[in-house]
């Protein structure tokens, strides 16, 4: 057995080995299920929910270096429970996985860390907020999530960033209850899409001072996909107008889309299945897979009709379960920058 297979199995249920992300659609025995009545409240929902099977703290940032080049940075901590609840020491059923990446037009650096819960190697503290795995961490320097530092390191890269929120936390879906399929699969989901970012990205050629925008996603569930869904395409778009658009499409027997229009002041407007239109325009071949790295994204009800294009189409995350994640540029009815995540290819 290699660790990759093991991890794939841990994070995405055993029978899903060959189908990758579709494993998220399998049964979740004994785990808590997302509840539409649940009222998201802070600071406790910044912390972990060990009774749910899977959870993530997901930061992406689109940055510009003092060398004039564009960069993307990702910092993610996943939590996966092999059974609900916590345990003592090594007996903990919680497994943590960190992914970090730096993307430029030419380069894409990825690192991964794994840890089990219960021993202090990885975890989340809700007040003052801190998530960490090994020496990677996302740490609040003030109250809530307003001001944070984020750092990570791989074999050939490192970054150290400061984040400052200029807007409020945004609840996705129905007050944080985000539906993922016609059958009712759902997750709890909120975001902080208003970070101003500054710091240093260190690449093999040396350190680069960077500034830009960041977007934090928080999501937890036990069964976010339906049986027939094989993966998703997720977009976070920051328009130059100050508005934001979160949208995703879940690929199943039929495409299931969902979107949230976020006004510059942070007021969210959720849109259910069908309002968002996603059309892949151009595919590139990465490791034998056809991955669409150019899309037409349309939300007619808001007058959005844009083309998004990857800064680096080869932004493949070759980790325990591989997926595509990278910065994109936006052109069309709106302009701006954003991040794209594609799984299940």
């Amino acid at each position, binding site marked *: 057995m290699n660790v990759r*297979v093991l991890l794939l199995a841990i994070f995405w249920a055993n029978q899903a080995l060959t189908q990758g992300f579709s494993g998220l659609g399998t049964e979740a025995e004994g785990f808590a299920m997302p509840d539409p009545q649940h009222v998201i409240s802070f600071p406790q929902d910044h912390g972990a929910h060990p009774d749910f099977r899977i959870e993530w703290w997901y930061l992406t940032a689109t940055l510009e270096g003092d060398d004039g080049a564009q960069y993307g940075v990702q910092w993610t901590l996943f939590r996966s429970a092999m059974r609900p609840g916590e345990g003592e020491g090594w007996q903990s059923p919680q497994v943590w996985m960190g992914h970090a990446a730096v993307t430029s037009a030419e380069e894409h650096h990825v*690192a991964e860390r*794994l840890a089990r819960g219960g021993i202090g190697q990885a975890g989340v503290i809700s007040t003052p907020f801190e998530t960490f795995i090994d020496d990677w961490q996302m740490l609040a320097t003030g109250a809530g999530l307003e001001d944070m530092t984020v750092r990570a390191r791989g074999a050939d890269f490192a970054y150290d960033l400061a984040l400052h929120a200029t807007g409020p936390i945004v609840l996705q879906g129905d007050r944080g209850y985000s539906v993922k399929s016609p059958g009712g699969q759902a997750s709890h989901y909120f975001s902080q899409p208003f970070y101003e970012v500054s710091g240093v990205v260190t690449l093999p050629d040396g350190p680069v001072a960077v500034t830009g925008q960041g977007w934090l996603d928080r999501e937890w569930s036990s069964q976010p996909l339906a049986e027939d869904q094989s993966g998703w395409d997720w977009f976070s778009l920051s328009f130059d107008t100050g508005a934001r658009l979160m949208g995703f499409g879940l690929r199943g027997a039929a495409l299931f889309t969902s979107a949230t229009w976020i006004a510059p002041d942070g007021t969210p407007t959720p849109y259910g299945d069908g309002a968002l239109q996603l059309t892949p325009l151009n595919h590139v071949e990465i490791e034998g897979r056809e991955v669409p790295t150019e899309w037409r994204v349309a939300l007619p009800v808001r007058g959005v009709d844009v083309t998004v294009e990857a800064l680096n189409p080869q932004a493949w995350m070759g980790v325990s379960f591989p997926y595509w994640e990278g910065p994109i540029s936006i052109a069309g009815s709106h302009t701006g920058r954003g991040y794209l995540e594609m799984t299940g290819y």
Partner: protein
Amino acid sequence: MALLTLLSHWRRHPGQLVTLMLGLALATALWSGVQAINEEARQSYARAAASVTAQSYDRLVTPDGQPVPMADYIALRRAGWLVSPVIGGHVQIGAERWRLLGIDPLTAPQGILPQAAGESLVDPTAFLTGPGQAFVTPGVNIVSDQREMPNFVPVEGIAPGLILTDLSVAARLLDQQDPSFLTILPDQPAGLPALAEVTSLTRQQPSEDRDLSRLTQSFHLNLTAFGFLSFAVGLFIVHSTIGLAFEQRRPVFRTLRALGLPLGRLVGALMVEVTGIALIAGSVGVFLGYFVAAALLPDVAGTLRSLYGADIGGSLAFRPLWAGVGLLIAMLGAWLSAAQAVWKVARMPLLAPAQPRAWAMASAKGRRWQVAGALALFGTSGVAGATGGSLIAGFLCLGALLLGAALMLPPVVSLILAGLSRMVRGALPEWILADTRQQLPGLSLALMALLLALSANVGVSTMVGSFRQTFLGWLNQRLVSELYVTAASNGQAEEIRAMLAPMVDATLPIAYAESRIAGAPGRVYGVADHATYREYWPMIVSVPHVWDALAAGQVALINEQLSLREGLSPGDPVRLTNGLTLPVGGVYSDYGNPTGQAMIALSLLRDRFDDVQEQRTAIRIDPERRGAVIATLQDRFDLPDGAVVDQERVKQASIDVFDQTFRVTGALNVLTLAVAGFALLASLMTLATMRLPQVAPLWALGQTRARLAWIELGRSLGLVLITWAVALPVGLALAWVLLAVVNVVAFGWRLPMMLFPLDWVRLLGLAVLSSALAAAYPALGLLRMPPAHLLKVFSNER
């Protein structure tokens, strides 16, 4: 058609066919058996080297050998260092003691857990949670006891005696939360703080004495040499049988050729025949070889475990490649054996008389060549022995010596017979001697085979015997104390010593610390200044007043292995630990220990080393009072079974280990001798059928058949006696090479050679017995032969 005609020969001589097949099969069996064992061991080493247990990664350990505090592990991870925790230890499950290794698959280096082709063998949830899963080598049966046991999953590739499981399971079974050590992954992120800034743990390189394949190389070379010897002996059988069969078929060849069969077709048919026989006999041989290997493997495993601490499995896997190579070897051997005979057929003039003549009749010229070849081989052997220093040189020396002796045998026997025939008077004795000389070419191959087997036997048993005798003497010297007590801790040991002090003659702490001696891992022992050591410790060489100097902390004693490896003699400095270098005061013998060792004054050890282990105590006491002391100890201290052992038990355990070590050598010895006996039987049987023309006239002159049979039997025994006499010096030379050259390189100790004449007599008995058995059948045939048969010799005279 030609082939069928040729094959009909075997139908008329089934005995010959059986001999040929058996010879080839036996040769192949022993050769491929040994190869199977070697291959199995190689696989085991490869597996061991690939696993985390082999220390192929650097480790972080505490200086005192205690578990690594969890906080230290977390501090390292939080500083960015990629280290992986391992909880290891021993567990007793039922009657078996297992090595338990708990790893963290999330942080461990890739490829630690077993995998089948592209498929995960592990149910991750089952592996990481609940009772967990544990991998063990297939074929073991673990009887669970009361504790909550993991589910045992048999998996190819796990070292025998090892349970590989998740850290959480190991933590539970060993009741230890903190890692035993941390594995340092080879690839670390850029820009990490220095290790010393993050932790006070000690970085440990993979230790060199675990390089099993290097250590055990000599042992496997040894096995291979034995296998080759057996194969050579087997080929002698094949060669003589094929030669005979070809010789007997000369009329057939002539007739076939005269009938118009082209030479090429005839030779082709013969090659097909030989190949077919080789294929069948080779398959049987490979089959037998598998069983030979399966039967010997437990002994081999035992040997390797006691000599080198190497664990190989006791069960054998069937490998197609190995079987293929075995078949190929059988075929090559058969072709080699048949080459001469086929060559003769190819060159046979078409109209040559078809009269059978004694085959392979050696001319005087041929004999001179033999002598020259033998002398050249002796020369090679001498040069290899003198310049050697490597295992290969040692074995070259051995091989050349053996082959040279074998080549030399027929001329020597002939010379002896010639000498005897000048001494005897009377027609019958003279005839016997003359006839024996006449017979010699036909028997010489078998006698050479016997010589090889006998010499190997003498050599190896002398080596093992010398070793055993030396070892026993050494044990008696070294294990001089009457009782040995192992306490649970240093503190308890101190209490025990304090309590016993007034009751016994002396309490001698056995104190040591793990260290790096002259750069390699080894133990440094501390010894109290006591007459026990001064009187009994087995020194090889030492400076004057060495024990006074030792007690004063001025010198260190080192074991022979260290002395030979590092080239250290008394007076040379040896580095014992950081900041402690002492001159060597003496060298002592230390058999059965593959690593270097040193001894210094007890007080010096306690002063200069951390983590001194002092749980063991040797007790000098009047043997009469042993029982009382044992009772007191067990009464006062809660000592487990085996914590108090008397001298006798320690000695017996050591001797058991020793005997286990050489069991496989003994087994191979017997097998080789058996094959040689069979070679003799084969030769005698074939000769018997050919020798009627020689015997019939004697019968016609009035000798009874019974008398003739006795003469035949006596003649064979005489030849065996001569062979044995030649084998003795050859065997002793062999033993000397083994002891003085091979052992030094292979084990790191030199041994005095001792002679065991009783063994030689026993061997003579065995040789006589096997040759008597071999000769009895043909002699019996002569005894029972109808007179008409003998008469036919005259009527058939061509």
